């Protein structure tokens, strides 16, 4: 006699599930047929678009290591780590519509130059007048369990005991800090300390034409100094650690106010 498994409780009748697959298959085929019959779309042409993300501190290029930079608030600091997530990329058209790049999650790391060159493939050909993206990882993916690719926790951007992704990580030394070091791990996607910010850097009237013949590149500057200046000036003397919560929100508000600017666009 088969042993009763612990927790088996009342076994769900398996027989019912057998009808599931054929029924699903019928529904899917019906959906396909109906879908095809409605609006036969022409085979869309697509192209590629590239984002070049150049990190700076003010007007100086960002170099990891002992280089001293001013915060803009009278303090100085060096940078050993600068990483951030850029996700949910959307390309906007003049008529107010947009194309959302599917499954767009990128980890940009100043220590990995290749990661600063983001390739967006399969973009519908057309003219785009703007770009928007999320700095960080949307709340759904923060609580969606094990992930791969840019979201793989092996990348060191997953906070485990209060689970969720670190959206922006900036670390280094600062003489004004009580410890001589600082660690900004901007994270949190739940109210009232939600640090997710959507950025839409202005194209300033320029347009981007995507087609099989042209692979335009949007060159952006990412100015780390903007994390310290803005609505709430940040000083290492008071905030040398931020791991979510009110200070992370203040820093997020700072960088949302102008860390990303479009420098120029190569039509290529």
């Amino acid at each position, binding site marked *: *006699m*088969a042993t*009763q*498994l*612990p*927790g*088996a*409780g*009342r*076994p*769900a*009748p*398996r*027989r019912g599930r*057998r009808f599931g697959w054929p029924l699903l298959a019928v529904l899917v085929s019906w959906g396909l047929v109906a879908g095809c019959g409605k609006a036969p779309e022409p085979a869309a042409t697509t192209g590629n678009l590239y984002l070049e993300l150049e990190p700076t501190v003010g007007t100086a290029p960002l170099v990891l290591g002992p280089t001293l930079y001013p915060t803009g608030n009278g303090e100085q600091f060096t940078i050993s780590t600068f990483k951030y997530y850029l996700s949910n990329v959307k390309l906007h058209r003049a008529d107010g519509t947009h194309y959302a790049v599917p499954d767009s999650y990128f980890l940009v790391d100043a220590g990995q130059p290749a990661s600063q060159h983001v390739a967006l493939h399969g973009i519908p050909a057309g003219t785009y007048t703007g770009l928007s993206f999320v700095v960080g990882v949307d709340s759904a993916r*923060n*609580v*969606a*369990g*094990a*992930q*791969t690719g840019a979201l*793989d*926790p*092996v990348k060191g951007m*997953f906070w*485990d*005991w*209060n*689970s*969720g992704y670190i959206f922006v990580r900036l670390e280094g030394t600062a003489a004004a800090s009580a410890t001589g070091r600082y660690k900004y791990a901007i994270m949190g996607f*739940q109210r*009232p*300390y939600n640090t997710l910010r959507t950025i839409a850097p202005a194209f300033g009237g320029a347009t981007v034409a995507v087609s099989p013949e042209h692979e335009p590149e949007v060159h952006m500057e990412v100015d780390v100094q903007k994390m310290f200046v803005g609505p709430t000036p940040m000083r290492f003397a008071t905030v040398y650690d931020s791991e*979510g*919560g*009110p200070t992370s929100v203040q820093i997020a508000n700072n960088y949302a106010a102008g860390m990303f600017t479009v420098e120029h666009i190569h039509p290529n």
Partner: protein
Amino acid sequence: MSWLRVGLLACFGVLVLNLLPAWRTGLGPTRQPVPGAQLPRQFGQPVYAPAQNPPERRAFELGRQLFYDARLSADGTVSCGSCHQQARAFASPERLSQGVGGRPGLRNAPALQNLRWRRTFFADGGPKHLETLPLAPLTNPREMGTTLPAVLAKLNADSAYARQFAAVYGQRPISSYQLLRALAQFTAALTSASSRYDYHVRRAAGGRFTAPERRGQALFRAKCGSCHATELFTDGSFRNNGLNRRFGQDSGRVVVTFLPTDRGRFAVPSLRNVARTAPYMHDGRFGTLAQVLAHYDHGMVASPTLDPIFRGPNGRLGIPLTAAEQRALLAFLATLTDEAFCRAPEFAAPRPSPGGKVRAAVRQPGIAP
């Protein structure tokens, strides 16, 4: 023709007849359901539905091996199962669990059961998904003290693990995704719903309550059931139950939410198997359930976030319980023990231990690594 032979034949016949319905429903004698694949209805819709990581025998066994494999920790001394012991509903008998290098932890290791139905984990609700939860104990220096890349390097260096993972997930090398999904196959399977209380509710054999148990059940519903609610015996909330005045040592949920109103609030634990999960509270301060009841009766201390449910009309704190009431409650709480769950061989450490078994297999001639 001996009677023995007739008896054996009869036994065989009964066995075949018993298996027939299983065959017809697609299970068959060799396809036993994967542990935990069948969900008890009384718990409602799971948060982590089986469809999200369909129970599969080899993946479950892999998760079980990993759960009991101390080699995953920094110095090879601590496995998940070191602190989460099956006989104690996967809780720890230690007040504070010990990590690598004998380092004391900060909290009492809680029971692991019915995790499919939980939205958050830990006493402070920090982890929000069963699959990513193991990253916390793996990397906590007071627990397993390692890093994710180090664990993956160890697993990939072990030819037996590499083979097993490849058999389940196809792609090599072993990734964090594969590791976390395999572990979740085991942890999600830890369903406990076969206590005497469950038999009682189903009016099944063996579920008849004694008079004190019945009195205890009624008392429980009246005095404990608002927090330890539903068939899971928790409402999933976080509350301050009057353990400290300031919570300087461990401030609870506030470290997760940054909200001052969450200071001193801790997850309301399920009371299933509670007679097995001593010691009690997030810091394991009470060794017995009698001490827990005494705390609720007269041991509470006030603090700004003390749950209002414990403030009586005349300023009295706690839940008044006479000695007789406490005895009845203890009798009822004992019915929540699921003996089968605490003894089920499929949840026990694999024998022989994963390391020993796989190494022995590799050494055999003719078996390619």
